């Protein structure tokens, strides 16, 4: 029994069958021009060398084939068009638009105003906000033809005579943009708010801007920037200084505006999707509508015959292995692993293993034709049984996602769970006075970065250039070269600005490879774009977990044994480790942890900001909090009694956990806010307090930097980082300036281009400041030595220093430390949770830039709150269909949801890292779900064990 289906592009049950037919009938006329050449064969033949375009790329493509826009329309079956007039940023335009073009399409593709971004194209995120006659609207959700006669303002129109608007300046000064992708939309909404009310309250600002999501969750800073313009009293830009009194430096430390802030607030920052090349065409991917199916046959002939389609590829035509898409044991994919592991993830797999698994890809002259082509690909699927839950997938009779079974193999190709042990856990339980057991679970959470995956691939001879949003240009280059069988130096990866990644833009992505292959075969640059739905289903999110804990404890509250049996749902492919961290927070000497990474027929799981941590910290710290409660011990006391301490086998570079906990408890006023017993407030609205703590990795490691100085005494720093929003360019520049002894203004940072920049491990794991920063310090030291020896260069000469240090801490463990204290208010009649106070205290060594570091914490915390209270991806178990992909479905935190995160850094300098710098980027998210969960318990006296803690669960717990 089979199933004819046209992939994700059509409705289930063939509802739109007849309608697609009618569209095909229209487009099948006129597939060749007067010379008998189809556009497709022309482009293949010439290799796509087309004249420089002053019109849209699609227009240029048509022009090159001798077809005018009007001619193409006629030939292609009368795409309705209308001539409209509109004013954009004060300039009048008369333009002919296709009736189906959205306003944002008109602005970006045809008027070349790329400052307005598309985040979802569904009116669910706000990135595309512009002003229409002064009112904020989603430009993706208005047809261009509807704004005939209207006055449109985009971010490019905010400046006056080259001067930033007061709001833009406030965003520059106050770190409004992190990754910057939502920034133009936020600015437009904020502009509208201030135009209506010059002195808005905080709540009025939040209400006016709540239609603009920020996934970096920089809500606190965005509102503060608007308040600065609106005349409200604004606090010091820096986080509270915990007053540990380390030495003050010249450049490193103070809150500093990003070096590229102006580009981000003016729409001039070029993200991958803003890059255009002459003759470029557009690619789209067809994806499986089934959770598990074998492809019996693919017929692409009708798609290929559609005028405007140049190339179609399938698993038969492009059997390329995507190395980074699936690794055994979560390790960096390398040749040894390749030799061992039997499980390959291809670009197009057969069988397909989840709804959204790629099946084919097309390249066509414009997006609309590409989309139509997808609907013409006929795939004969044989649906297979599927399984969605990890534990069910390990049952002996479970449907097999892979023939070898659903327990994913490790780097040595063994199908065994990941086990770590310490001491003797059985003896530890025997020693205990009480043993507690419980089960916790966390849901799949998508990284949900504002910028969708996209890739523009361009061949010049045998050299490939990819304009792609990636967190690691070096890794992306190497992966792509390996997968395509090319030398590294024949691949160039460019990423100047990136709209967030949070871990799902590491390495290369299948989109990069698909774009490259389409471009090669089409003989033209191909911009492959993923819709938001595709980005959700086709990329990855944080693995869902089920965690069974057993904890043995003595009557004095000391834990003697911890056992974790955990399951991580990895989806159809094992992209990353599937680990569950948290047990190592405790000094308990008897531990057993067994984690099974399990294949399921869901969207792939992979790295998301501290990949193994928030899930495990929620599980273990909720468990321990529960143990403390049952034993009648204050949670803070319990933590201080049981946290991992220096001594024994572990030697730390420094250790400040107690200081973090004490300072946070003091600021928070723990003894007043913590309820004892839990749930003891009278009345329907109950408050409670909870906390969480961390010792968190902050290791040193290898990276590279190059610094050059010229005769004008201008320094150029070359680093392989991209800036995913954390502000790495600025941080690296500040470190260089400090190490060189010059002002930041004398340092230019060049990043994001493998042709110009040296190796970087990639912006993930919060490591950039420490690893690349150390390389920068080394290179600066080398350069200062050269300057001392030879003096400043003259004329065209330069001095260059390069460093690739691989430092070590001599066996010492280097951690950062932190504690979060949270108060919630729960309206038990409505199941409504509000965070009323959030205190975050972190020791992350010396803070290089107080502004960006503070906002990394605040943003990460708000992301973590979203994980705690809202986000998941729901599947229907009867048919394996995802029901809630996308921003609306995931219920992300909005401006009105975001509480004020009070952030303090206790600064130290342990002698390692750049000036003592440690990790910051992931610290905030790691602690938030645990602290929020514990606070809810304290408020209502019911332990919420399954994330997300949604309203229905609270009401049911209280029933």
């Amino acid at each position, binding site marked *: 029994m089979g199933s004819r289906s046209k992939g994700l592009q059509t409705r289930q049950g063939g509802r739109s069958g007849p309608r697609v037919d009618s569209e095909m009938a229209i487009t099948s006329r006129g597939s060749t021009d007067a010379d008998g050449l189809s556009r497709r064969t022309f482009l293949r033949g010439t290799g796509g060398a087309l004249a420089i375009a002053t019109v849209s790329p699609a227009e240029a493509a048509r022009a090159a084939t001798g077809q005018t826009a009007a001619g193409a329309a006629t030939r292609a079956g009368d795409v309705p068009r209308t001539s409209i007039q509109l004013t954009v940023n004060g300039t009048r335009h008369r333009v002919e638009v296709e009736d189906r073009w959205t306003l944002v399409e008109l602005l970006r593709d045809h008027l070349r105003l790329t400052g307005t971004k598309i985040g979802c194209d569904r*009116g669910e995120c706000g990135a595309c906000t512009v002003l229409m006659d002064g*009112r*904020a609207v989603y430009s993706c959700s208005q047809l261009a033809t509807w704004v*005939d006669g209207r006055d449109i303002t985009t971010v490019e129109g905010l400046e006056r005579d080259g001067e930033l608007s007061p709001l833009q300046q406030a965003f520059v000064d106050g770190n409004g943009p992190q990754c910057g992708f939502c920034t133009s939309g936020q600015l437009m909404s904020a502009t509208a708010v201030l135009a209506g009310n010059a002195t808005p309250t905080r709540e009025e600002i939040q209400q*006016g801007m709540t239609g603009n999501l920020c996934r970096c969750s920089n809500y606190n800073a965005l509102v503060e920037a608007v308040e600065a313009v609106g005349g409200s009293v604004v606090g010091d830009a820096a986080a509270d200084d915990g007053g540990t009194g380390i030495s003050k430096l010249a450049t490193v430390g103070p809150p500093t505006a990003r070096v590229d802030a102006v580009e981000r607030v003016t729409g001039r920052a070029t993200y991958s999707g803003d890059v255009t090349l002459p003759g470029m065409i557009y690619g789209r991917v067809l994806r499986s509508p089934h959770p598990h199916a074998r492809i019996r046959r693919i017929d692409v002939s009708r798609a290929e015959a559609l005028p405007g389609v140049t190339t179609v590829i399938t698993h038969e035509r492009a059997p390329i292995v995507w190395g980074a898409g699936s690794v055994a044991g979560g390790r960096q994919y390398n040749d040894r692993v390749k030799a061992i592991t039997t499980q390959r993830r291809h670009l197009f797999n057969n069988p397909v293993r989840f709804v959204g698994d790629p099946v084919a890809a097309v390249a066509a002259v414009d997006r609309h034709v590409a989309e139509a082509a997808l609907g013409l690909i006929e795939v004969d699927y044989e649906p297979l049984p599927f399984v969605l839950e990890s534990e069910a997938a390990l049952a002996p009779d479970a449907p097999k996602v892979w023939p070898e079974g659903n327990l994913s193999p490790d780097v040595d190709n063994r199908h065994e769970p990941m086990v770590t042990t310490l001491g003797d856990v059985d003896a530890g339980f025997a020693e205990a006075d009480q043993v507690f057991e419980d089960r916790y679970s966390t849901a799949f959470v998508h990284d949900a970065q504002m910028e969708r995956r996209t890739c523009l691939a361009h061949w010049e001879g045998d050299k490939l250039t990819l304009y792609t949003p990636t967190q690691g240009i070096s890794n992306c280059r190497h992966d792509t070269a390996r997968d395509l069988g090319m030398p590294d130096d024949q691949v160039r990866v460019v990423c100047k600005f990136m709209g967030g990644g949070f871990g799902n833009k590491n390495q290369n992505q299948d989109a990069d490879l698909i774009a490259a292959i389409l471009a090669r075969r089409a003989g033209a640059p191909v911009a492959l774009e993923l819709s938001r739905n595709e980005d959700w289903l086709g990329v990855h999110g944080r693995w869902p977990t089920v965690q069974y804990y057993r904890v043995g404890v003595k009557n004095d509250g000391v834990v003697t044994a911890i056992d974790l049996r955990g399951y991580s749902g990895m989806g159809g492919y094992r992209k990353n480790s599937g680990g569950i961290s948290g047990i190592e927070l405790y000094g308990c000497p008897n531990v057993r942890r067994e984690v099974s990474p399990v294949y399921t027929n869901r969207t792939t799981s992979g790295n998301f900001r501290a990949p193994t941590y928030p899930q495990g910290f929620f599980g273990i710290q909720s468990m321990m909090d529960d143990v403390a409660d049952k034993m009648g011990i204050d949670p803070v006391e319990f933590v201080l009694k049981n946290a991992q301490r220096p001594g024994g086998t572990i030697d730390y570079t420094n250790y400040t956990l107690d200081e973090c906990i004490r300072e946070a408890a003091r600021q928070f006023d723990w003894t007043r806010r913590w309820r004892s017993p839990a749930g003891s407030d009278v009345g329907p609205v109950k408050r409670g307090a909870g906390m969480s703590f961390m010792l968190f990795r902050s290791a040193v490691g290898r990276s590279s930097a190059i610094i050059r100085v010229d005769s004008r005494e201008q320094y150029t720093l070359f680093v392989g980082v991209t800036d995913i929003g954390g502000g790495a360019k600025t941080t690296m520049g500040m470190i260089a300036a400090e190490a060189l002894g010059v002002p930041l203004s004398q340092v230019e940072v060049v990043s994001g281009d493998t042709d110009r920049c040296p190796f970087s491990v990639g912006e993930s794991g919060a490591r950039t400041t420490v690893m690349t920063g150390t390389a920068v310090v080394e290179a600066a030291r080398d350069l200062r030595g050269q300057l001392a020896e030879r003096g400043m260069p003259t004329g065209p000469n330069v001095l260059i220093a390069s460093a690739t240090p691989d430092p070590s801490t001599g066996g010492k463990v280097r951690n950062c430390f932190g504690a979060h204290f949270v108060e919630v208010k729960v309206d038990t*009649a409505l199941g409504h949770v509000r965070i009323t106070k959030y205190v975050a205290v972190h020791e992350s060594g010396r803070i290089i830039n107080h502004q960006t570091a503070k906002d990394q914490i605040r943003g990460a915390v708000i992301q973590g709150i979203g994980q705690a209270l809202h986000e998941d991806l729901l599947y229907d178990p009867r048919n394996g269909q995802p029901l809630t992909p996308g921003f609306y479905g995931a219920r992300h935190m909005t*401006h009105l949801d975001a509480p004020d995160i009070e952030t303090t850094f206790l600064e130290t300098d342990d002698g390692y890292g750049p000036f003592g710098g440690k990790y910051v980027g992931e610290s905030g998210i790691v602690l938030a779900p645990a602290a929020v969960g514990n606070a809810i318990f304290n408020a209502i006296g019911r332990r919420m064990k399954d994330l997300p803690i949604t*309203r229905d669960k609270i009401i049911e717990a209280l029933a």
Partner: protein
Amino acid sequence: MKRLRNANARTLGEAVALARRARDDGARASYAGGGSDLLGMVKERIEEPDLVVSLKTVVGHDQVETTGDGVRIGGLITLDTLSRHQLVRDRFAVLAQAADTVATPQIRNVGTLAGNVSQRPWCWYYRRGFDCYKAGGTQCFSATGENQFHAIFGGGPSYIVHPSDIAVALVALDATFRLTGPSEDRSVPAAQFFVLPSANPARENVLREDELLVGVGLPVPATGARSAYHKVMDRESWTHAVVSAAVVLDLAGEVCRGARIVLGGVAPTPWRVPAAEQILIGNRVTAALAARAADVAIEGARPLSKNGYKVALTKGVVERTLVDLLPT
């Protein structure tokens, strides 16, 4: 997006005629008021119009006007204008509040009253393209499936909840809907405008093919009238109601002379609960009485496998809304 043609109507009559003519030619036509929801559905292939009839160019039908027997509000008024309108805020607070809770400022700036009242369901099965009753099919996937946000009253054979906040407020205000179509103009009381699935599972309202909601008429409110809209959402903004309540109380001192309680998020139509109203009418409204009325409001609820929490939540919302309306 699929190819489509846009036609700008200058009057509602022209709009209806354009839609009708397209249909006579065998094409599909959709109206665009704000257009946000329409475009989303077109991109998702849930609606596939060949012709979009834009109402943005229609002159008029976007005002609040006082008439002899009440107030008329044009169907093309934007939700933002409606929520800020002083007369509406003063005398029909429930309607202004409902408008203010819809989506986000960007959507309210273009979204219309008529469009909001006529919007299609947001059930995830319908919106993900399942061939369900609402799409003209023959089953409801939520009945024995993922029904966390579905109906506890009035459901069957489809279990959607009506997605419009405005609709709930208008039923509470005893509005009359004015419709225009190819063959006639007609008026329909709000209570009869909405259609339960048991009557017709494919539709949410009585609008005939090509018919448009011209506007609504609201009767003069009683002098002692106070009203409020309470919307429970699963984040602080930008979602449809999990459960909502529109309450209009006519109070003389603390004594209730009239009450209308209408629920949103619980049924395929705005769900009036006259039994709860009766608990209040003629009595001093106290917190205790509000609690009793809330208890009655949930009588007869028939939860599905995953939305049982809505019963307690509905009780909580009704009670809270009533208590918040009590004179302090």
